[in-house]
């Protein structure tokens, strides 16, 4: 597909198509597309259940081309990234990936993303939101160049317990040796391809990065190689259940970027989001450090926690209370789903102190629509550890044969 044509006629085609779009269009049975970061992408191909079970039992292809990608390079790339992000990225070795977050001056989360070290002074940052202004303002005084390269790279997530076997069958020699968060360079029928053992499912899986003009050929080759191992294209709905089981946060769902909030008190800090493990106070200065130190001293007023809710009705958007009488409101659910693998009714929720301690009990106000009659349930919920699902196969190297 020709992205320059669609860019120049943006008023006619407000959403761009990814290099995999023609294949997705062919496979879509329910014609359900959604806008994601300026691209049209698939929400559901067939049914959410089929696609979800493919993630946990076979192999899935998910087009993540719209993931915003920045190339960060230059002699100051390391100090730049270490001033931007809260964790110590000086420790990140070449051909490794790190999950990272970055904050504004007030220590409130702007976004999370993955940092790929592709060379001595060359990095790639993958994020959910466009934020070139923040990245460029962060570059004042640093010898780095920052370019958005989203459209230059087609990206495909290959996730599921048989994903390694599928990639091996497709001809990615040595893919089984790739460790979690490692980057490897392969070729698929002579087409160069970069693979990283990363993903958003909490399962065994890889992300493939390729030139857009090789996208369709690679898709076809993977589909052919995976036929006997249950390969299936998936949309964002199935992925959303998997990421919730894995305990991953979704931007604009579980938190709103501090650069986008309008109302006071809607920003979230890493301490509140349970991401304090990503904050290294000893590595030197980074944006938000002084504010986060002060917050650490005060202690967070609220925290994002995992909930295990009684019953089987997902607690979508539920308000949370300290007791079943619903008098004292103490928070709300940000993400909820019935977890088919855990057989638990799980949720992520923002809960006020002191109710966020693991082991506390809270009450979720769940509304059910039963053939246009609304019913209200007060369901008991326990604060539990995250992630809800963490199979050992996600880390096993080499992964099991299928």
């Amino acid at each position: 597909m020709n992205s320059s044509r669609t860019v120049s006629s943006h008023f006619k085609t407000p959403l761009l198509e990814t290099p995999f779009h023609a294949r997705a269009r062919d496979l879509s049975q329910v014609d359900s597309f959604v806008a994601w970061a300026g691209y049209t992408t698939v929400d559901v191909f067939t049914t959410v259940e089929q696609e979800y079970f493919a993630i946990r039992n076979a192999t899935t292809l998910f087009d993540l081309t719209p993931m915003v990608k920045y190339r960060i390079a230059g002699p100051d790339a390391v100090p730049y990234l270490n001033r931007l992000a809260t964790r110590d990225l000086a420790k990140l070795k070449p051909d490794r990936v790190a999950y990272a977050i970055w904050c504004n001056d007030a220590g409130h989360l702007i976004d999370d993303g993955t940092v790929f070290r592709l060379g001595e002074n060359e990095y790639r940052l993958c994020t959910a939101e466009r934020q070139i202004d923040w990245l460029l303002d962060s570059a004042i005084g640093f010898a780095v160049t920052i370019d958005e390269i989203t459209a230059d790279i087609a990206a495909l997530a290959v996730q599921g317990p048989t994903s390694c076997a599928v990639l091996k069958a497709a001809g990615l020699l040595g893919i089984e040796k790739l460790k979690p968060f490692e980057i490897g360079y392969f070729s698929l029928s002579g087409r160069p391809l970069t693979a990283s053992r990363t993903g958003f499912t909490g399962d065994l899986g890889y992300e493939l990065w390729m030139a857009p003009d090789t996208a369709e050929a690679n898709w076809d080759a993977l589909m052919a190689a995976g036929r006997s191992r249950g390969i299936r294209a998936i949309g964002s709905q199935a992925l959303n259940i998997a990421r919730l089981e894995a305990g991953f946060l979704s931007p604009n769902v579980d938190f709103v970027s501090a650069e986008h909030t309008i109302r006071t008190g809607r920003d979230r800090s890493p301490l509140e989001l349970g991401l304090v493990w990503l904050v290294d106070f000893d590595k030197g200065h980074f944006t938000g450090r002084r504010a986060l130190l002060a917050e650490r001293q005060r202690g967070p007023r609220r925290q994002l926690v995992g909930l295990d809710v009684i019953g089987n009705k997902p607690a979508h958007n539920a308000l949370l209370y300290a007791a079943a009488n619903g008098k004292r409101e103490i928070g709300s659910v940000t993400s909820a789903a019935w977890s088919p693998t855990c057989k638990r009714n799980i949720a992520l929720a923002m809960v006020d102190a002191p109710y966020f301690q693991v082991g506390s009990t809270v009450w979720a106000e769940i509304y059910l629509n039963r053939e246009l009659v609304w019913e209200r349930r007060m369901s008991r919920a326990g604060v539990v550890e995250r992630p809800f699902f963490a199979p050992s196969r996600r880390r096993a190297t080499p992964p099991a044969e299928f």
Partner: protein
Amino acid sequence: MTPQSGTTSQSGTTSQSGTTPQSARTRYDCIVIGGGHNGLVCAATLARGGRSVLVLEAQSQVGGAAVTREFAPGFRVSACAHLLHLMPADLMRDLKLESHGLEWSAQGMPTTALIPGAAPLTVSHTGAGPDAAAFAAYSERMRRFAQALVPLLSKVPPRLGTSGWSDRWALLGLGWQIRKLGRRDMRELLRIGGMNVFDLLEEHFESDALKGALGFDAVLGTNFGVRSPGTVLTLLYRLAAEFAAGASAMSQPTGGLGAVCDALAKSAVALGAAIRTASPVARIMVEADRTVGVELESGERIAAATVVSSADPKSTFLKLLGPRYLDTGFVRRVNHIRARGLAAKLHLALDRAPQFAGVGAGASRGRLLLAPSLQYIERAYNHAKYGEYSSAPAMEITVPTVNDPGLAPPGKHVLSAIVQYAPYALKAGWQGQRQRFTELCVDLLDSVAPGLRGSVLNSELMTPVDIEREFRNEGGNWHQGELAFDQFFMVRPVPGAAQHRTPLPGLFLCGAGCHPGGGVMGTAGRNAAQQVLKTGSAI
């Protein structure tokens, strides 16, 4: 403490020698970066508060932009501002500047408007022709407004959005000052506060010459034309500072403005501060997220738990400290500070005293304005908007040698003029344009002082680019940052550093980039020192 040898000011001159690193102390309580008037006031106040203080000045003499220096053999002049009218009388008294050698060549100097082709107009309470009554009423009201705003200048601005009672009291106090004016005056102040000076003066006066002279004060040293919004604020600000400075406000120190800083330096040294000249600071050192001292360009390191910078905020944060010790949002704000200069300084060495047409002996001792109407100023500003210098610039002119013959060889004279407008980023580039602009200015001066052209022995034009280079202030702005609503009071220079404290513990600002801003005032230095003394024990 006793001053180090070689650190005291040599009597009667502006030059000082730097100490050698070997003999220097390597640790102080406080280091003040920059030996301009604000740095010196700050150092003196800190020393009086019991701190050991070292002032580090990059140039070979103290003074910063308030310096007197030779621009042609035998001819000396105040390099930037050439009149002292904003420094509070109590500050000068507290630091005993007169007993440290400060003398006056002239005080209470008159202002005269030069009108090409017509008789000049002396701006004063008594004589303003058909506008006499209006002028008296206007002056009286502006004086009341200025008086109400005076307390605002002498205080560290409060922080907004905090729950601290001292901040709330300060805001309430400011509101009370304005309310205290009474209903009519308060309403008028709030009405004109955001206006432009052109419209304000049109409301009051008939005479173009009077309006031009009064309007020029609102835009002198700024990036504005008389029709720019916010120019009433800059005028009120100037009047408030002049009011605080006292009755004899407009004055000329003997030996030029540099003499003020020489006296300040002696005062600081007498109070125990040490001063090292020719010691440019390369960077502010940081350890464990606080300042620990400075490193000089020579590589020498001097330790101090408190570093107070009188350098402009952009240079302080982006060059001396560096963005890596600051948060992105803060750096973004600092980067957006508007600090481009639009005023140039012209110095002429003259063979004889200039004869301004129609100007008597008394008036020629004072301040001469070449801004014959508001339209003239606005037209001059038009060029600057498009990156050109004015084809008919407005000027504030003094002939300092009339009052202080010692600045030139016997019988010779110096003319000093602030010339507007001369943009920092001249479209054509100053290279090659400097001489043309000088010629243009001399021609203009010749038209109001016939024969002046033939008496010019030598000339110097300091464009904003030259001012930036010589005084190390980013953008060459006279006030280390434009004086405008969005860079004023509680947001000067930027939120997060408007109380002289900076995000980095131990680092403070004391220059004109802080509230209450520029002009040779010294208040920013004094306020900063008080903030350091107040905060000091807590950190």
